[in-house]
């Protein structure tokens, strides 16, 4: 039984290949069935997002798993096996575990610290669980991975500050206005970046949009999209006092909004602040606007600077996350090693011997000096005999199961039934601590 993962991601494969290899619900099902038919593979969880496609498996022998998954994936997504082999990575055991944990902690993401990956992993796992393509090992691994992801989120500040320009803009606006719900945004120019930022605003609860553009038809188009209102470019200044947030992205070669107009607008708003986002190059808004009382201006350079600082901070936090992940991988490995047959049998024997010795001592103590050495030997032999006979068949069965698919199920149940897990783990942890 070997844990392994085979996959491609945004770092190893071009987007064309990722598109082809991406797996929807149906394909995931087909792939799982196909792989489980093989005698060497006992558990499968496919994980497919826009940046990665990965298949986590439990195989009886490592090389079998790799070959099987590779060809099945190529076949289902109809790509050349060679193309896939070039881009795919294959991790086993410890590296595979740490890989999943890093993915869950969003350290492997395109944008380090993004929050979506957690729910994607959750969905992939639940789908696989429903398909009954998981068992003890992957169940435990994925549940643990979700916990690890959560731990990374709460114990580090990896996802705290946004790193994209448009979300930085929204984030800064939130530092002026506590909440954006019910606020009005004025879009000056109907550019792509403006639209992206406006989308972010919508997701933060902004419902009222005013769009102003040199060509009114384009403004109307955009206004439609955001359920807003298009106004002629010449009347821009009349609408300025209504806006809490102004996003400017025109291609104009000169300033569209000047200091004096902004001063007037703020006065008409009774000093309520306006947050200006200027994402045009060359700039649309007079930099002097930032000096106007209760006006806040951020141009593209300012936003990039904040984004850069935030990204640097995430890198720093990512290092903390790596430490957490290393810890958790260790934890999982500990559990995994407990599933080996030999230590389980040893533990079982140790436990039985301990019970036997304890009971013998108690019994012999009751006889005082009535017993001869011979008697004692006999009683001891009786106890040993019972223990040995009792343990014979489980031992043989366990040894046999070790070489079979799903054998760790026996080991796991044995450990649970006889409570063999706890002590050993504690002991190990103790010895580890003493090492520190």
């Amino acid at each position, binding site marked *: 039984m070997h844990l392994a993962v085979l996959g491609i991601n945004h770092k190893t494969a071009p987007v064309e290949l990722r598109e082809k290899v991406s797996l929807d619900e149906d394909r995931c099902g087909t792939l799982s069935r196909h792989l489980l038919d093989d005698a060497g593979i006992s558990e499968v969880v496919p994980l497919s997002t826009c940046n990665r496609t990965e298949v986590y498996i439990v195989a009886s022998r490592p090389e079998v798993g790799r070959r099987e998954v590779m060809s099945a994936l190529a076949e289902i997504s109809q790509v050349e096996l060679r193309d896939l082999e070039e881009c795919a990575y294959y991790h086993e055991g410890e590296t595979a575990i740490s890989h999943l944990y890093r993915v869950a902690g969003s350290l492997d993401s395109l944008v380090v610290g993004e929050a979506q990956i957690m729910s994607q992993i959750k969905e992939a796992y639940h789908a696989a669980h429903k398909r009954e393509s998981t068992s003890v090992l992957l169940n435990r691994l994925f549940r643990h991975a979700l916990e690890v992801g959560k731990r990374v989120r709460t114990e580090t500040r990896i996802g705290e500050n946004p790193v994209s320009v448009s979300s930085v803009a929204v984030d*800064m606006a939130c*530092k*002026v206005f506590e909440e954006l719900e019910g606020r009005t945004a004025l879009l000056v120019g109907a550019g792509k970046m403006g639209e992206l930022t406006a989308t972010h605003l919508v997701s933060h609860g902004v419902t009222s949009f005013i769009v102003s553009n040199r060509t009114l038809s384009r403004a109307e188009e955009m206004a439609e999209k955001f359920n807003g209102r298009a106004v002629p470019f010449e009347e821009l200044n009349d609408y300025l006092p209504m806006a809490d947030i102004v996003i400017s992205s025109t291609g104009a070669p000169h300033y569209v909004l000047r200091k004096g107009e902004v001063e007037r607008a703020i006065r008409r708003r009774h000093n309520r602040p306006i947050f200006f986002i200027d994402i045009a190059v060359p700039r649309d808004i007079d930099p002097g606007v930032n000096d106007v009382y209760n006006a806040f201006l951020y141009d593209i350079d300012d936003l990039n600077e904040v984004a850069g600082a935030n990204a640097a901070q995430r890198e720093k936090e990512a290092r903390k996350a790596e430490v957490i992940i290393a810890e958790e991988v260790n934890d999982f490995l500990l559990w995994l090693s407990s599933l080996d047959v030999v230590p389980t049998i040893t533990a079982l024997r140790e436990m039985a011997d301990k019970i036997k010795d304890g009971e013998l001592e108690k019994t012999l103590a009751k006889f005082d000096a009535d017993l001869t050495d011979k008697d004692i030997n006999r009683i001891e032999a009786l106890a040993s005999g019972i223990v040995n006979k009792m343990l014979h068949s489980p031992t043989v069965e366990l040894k046999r199961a070790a070489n079979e698919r799903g054998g760790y199920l026996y080991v796991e149940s044995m450990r649970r039934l006889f409570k063999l897990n706890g002590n050993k783990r504690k002991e190990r942890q103790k010895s580890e601590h003493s090492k520190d």
Partner: protein
Amino acid sequence: MDSITKIEEVLFIAALISYLVCSGIYIWYLISRNEKFVRVGTMLLYMGLLAQTVALGLRWYSSGHAPMSDLYESLSLFGWGIILFFLIAQHFYPVKAAGALVVPTAFLITSIAGVFYKGPEPLVPALQSYWLWIHVTIAMLSYGLFTLSFGAGFFYIVQEYLLKKNYRNVLYTFLILLSILGLALGFWAGSWWAEPAKVMDSVTQIVSNDYATSDYLKILGGGVIGLVVGCLLGFLAGKGASKPGFSSRLPSLDVLDEVSYRGIAFGFPLLTIGIITGAIWADQAWGRWWGWDPKETWSLITWLFYGAYLHTRLTMGWRGRHSAIIAVIGLIVVLFTYLGVNLFLSGLHSYAVPA
């Protein structure tokens, strides 16, 4: 009676320690943004408040009159009010960060109370009136609210400069505030150090200080040392705060403005009632409403100051930095009215001076 005094003392010290620890935690929160830690801090603050409440209650019980007759009792009540209103504000608004200024202020005021600690004593004749607790409680509660406004107002100014990318002014803001605080504390410590001869009028029981030149020098020296230390701390804090990332540790402008405004909006009517009850009491005790004694004059100045805040805000639409600056200066006026007048100027309100 003795054991009650003992318990009261222990509880007061416990509250003081909890405020000190919480000051550290709330300042640390600004530096590290550790949410878990600050939650512990909030719990601790609640416990400190409870301890101080019980201490004040025991004082009331053991002395037989409302605990507002001397500087220890009224300062303790002042600190209590600050913590109470800060916890209320923190419950309704995300203003934990403001605690980095408000909680240390409360600690400072409570610890000054500790300096003036005296066992429970019977009231002097002039204070034997039911107006005592009405007048003092209301005045102290309004001061507590003004302190909250001050904290929120200060961080409003800082946050606004941060969002305007004007980092130099962030540094100046810290520098100015902490210098003034340092100067005031230095003067106070200096006056403590100077120990001028006390002259007490045997008839009126008005105590006045008789300062010699060396006493003035000591006070001045204390002020200079305080100023230097304040400058240094202000510079360090300002340097730490004047970077783009710091703005994400502070509440939004909207919240800070609102909390600062609410503090004054509730504090001003209380102050008005406090002054009116004071006038009625004065009429009863001395046969006059208003005598232009230093305390009365300064509380009128305070009242006009906050009146100006509300006037500019409600009828002229002021808000933001200008209002925040008034709120910050307002507390300095309050502290002078309260401590400065009691300690440096003698008058009819000088019961509070340690005789």
